[in-house]
């Protein structure tokens, strides 16, 4: 069989099988990791100062990059809809589509990706460095559970901070579309705002908040999970950081699809 006609086919099956087993094992490890955070994080001791520090790190310090992303995206969206819509006399739909696009999709996803790039990488690098320099072991010998002290505050802060960031980004994005539509495309300000209000629905805002909270959880879990599993010195920290960002991106886009299908499917 080793050199038979089916040998290469079997090798291909084996490779796919190994990949699948590896993927399932990782899903199992991440799930166990998540339940451990929740099980330990809800029991004392609590670290409110660490939680507040993480709110600042994840929320406050992400505001500039999130604000810039939102205003550029909102403006570009308005221009695209105007240009594309004018081909079939639908350029008046700019305010409605800017609201839909920003609130339902672009706001949560772009903020999720920006914060994942900034925060998941930082979490993985910090915890990874702590792992390879034995600081996590030192915490244990000083009777401090790193799940409660380091990880739970990050998870809870990300779940709280992300919805606020997304609401701010949505507002800024809509404002970006408004400014471009008024000052470049010549829309009437009053009617633009009236249309925006008309198409802005509570259900969309709720969905944006749910998406943001889920993305926040993904960012914190993947950042901390990859950081805590770091092995092998500086190269290991680099790999953990990359893995945290890539896995956060993929999971954010996948969960966005799932939530959107569940909400509208």
């Amino acid at each position: 069989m080793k050199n038979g006609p089916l040998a290469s086919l079997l090798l291909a099956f084996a490779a796919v099988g190994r990949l699948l087993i590896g993927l399932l094992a990782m899903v199992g490890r991440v799930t166990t990791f998540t339940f451990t955070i929740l099980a330990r994080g809800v029991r004392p001791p609590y670290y409110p100062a660490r939680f507040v520090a993480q709110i600042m790190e994840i929320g406050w310090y992400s505001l500039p990059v999130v604000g810039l992303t939102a205003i550029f995206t909102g403006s570009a969206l308005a221009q695209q809809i105007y240009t594309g819509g004018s081909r079939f006399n639908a350029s008046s739909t700019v305010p409605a589509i800017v609201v839909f696009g920003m609130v339902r999709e672009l706001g949560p996803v772009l903020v999720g990706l920006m914060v994942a790039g900034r925060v998941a990488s930082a979490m993985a690098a910090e915890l990874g460095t702590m792992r390879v320099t034995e600081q996590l072991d030192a915490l244990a010998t000083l009777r401090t559970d790193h799940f409660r002290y380091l990880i739970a505050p990050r998870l809870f802060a990300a779940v709280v901070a992300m919805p606020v960031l997304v609401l701010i980004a949505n507002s800024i994005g809509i404002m970006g579309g408004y400014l471009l539509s008024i000052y470049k495309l010549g829309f009437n300000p009053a009617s633009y705002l009236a249309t925006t209000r008309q198409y802005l629905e509570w259900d969309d805002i709720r969905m944006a908040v749910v998406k943001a909270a889920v993305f926040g959880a993904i960012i914190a879990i993947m950042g901390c999970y990859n950081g805590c599993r770091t092995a092998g010195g500086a190269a290991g920290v680099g790999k953990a950081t990359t893995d945290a960002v890539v896995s956060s991106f993929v999971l954010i886009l996948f969960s966005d699809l799932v939530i959107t299908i569940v909400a509208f499917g």
Partner: protein
Amino acid sequence: MATSFQPKIKLTDVVKRFDEKTVLDGVNLSVEHGESVAIIGGSGTGKSVTLKCILGLLTPESGSVTVDGVEVVGARARDMERVRAKFGMLFQGGALFDSMPVWRNITFGLTQGRIREPNRMRRIAEENLERVGLGRDILNLRPNELSGGMQKRVALARAIAPRPEIIFFDEPTTGLDPIRADVINDLITSLVEDLGVTALTITHDMSSARKIAHRVAMLYDGRIIWQGPRDRLYDSGNPYVDQFVQGRADGPIR
């Protein structure tokens, strides 16, 4: 319940593997109350792994580790926390927390990372710094602002601050100049002699081992191949120990 004839720490047939590699292959070792034991052995022979198995940071595949008669292997989190409260540990690289100043590092074991009674904690940090030969001028500095030797001594101050019953020293004199190394040796000796602390030290420094330890054990190929009083270290009759303590390239250790 701890009794006087019961070893403070006892390892029985401890086996620890990482994937296919067997690092500890049936380690047996006892440390008595108030005794200072040094473990010597080449790099990668599992000395740090032994300490981490005792602390419950790693779980052995088989065997038993007891501290004051309490089994550590498979212990519940609450029992493990009680056991760990007896320990202080000086890590090889110091393992100081980069994000906090020296005084908070030293008192971390007393506050579990929370900011409580800062004035009293700063006083405690100052007292412990003094014990390791450092002054109060570094209390507010971050670990990355200190030299390697100073970081080691701050880490030692952190290990002794909660006044543990047992202290593990992972290469305590590595990276220190000979005078500072001797200060650390004296400190370890005084902790054991004056305060009755039980000490387990990993070291490559033979003069340090002879000074601080009552007994020396050599780890090779995943097992304790020799143990005896420190005075026998250069007269062990064991070819592996002889080669190691004399630092010869030729001999049974490859």
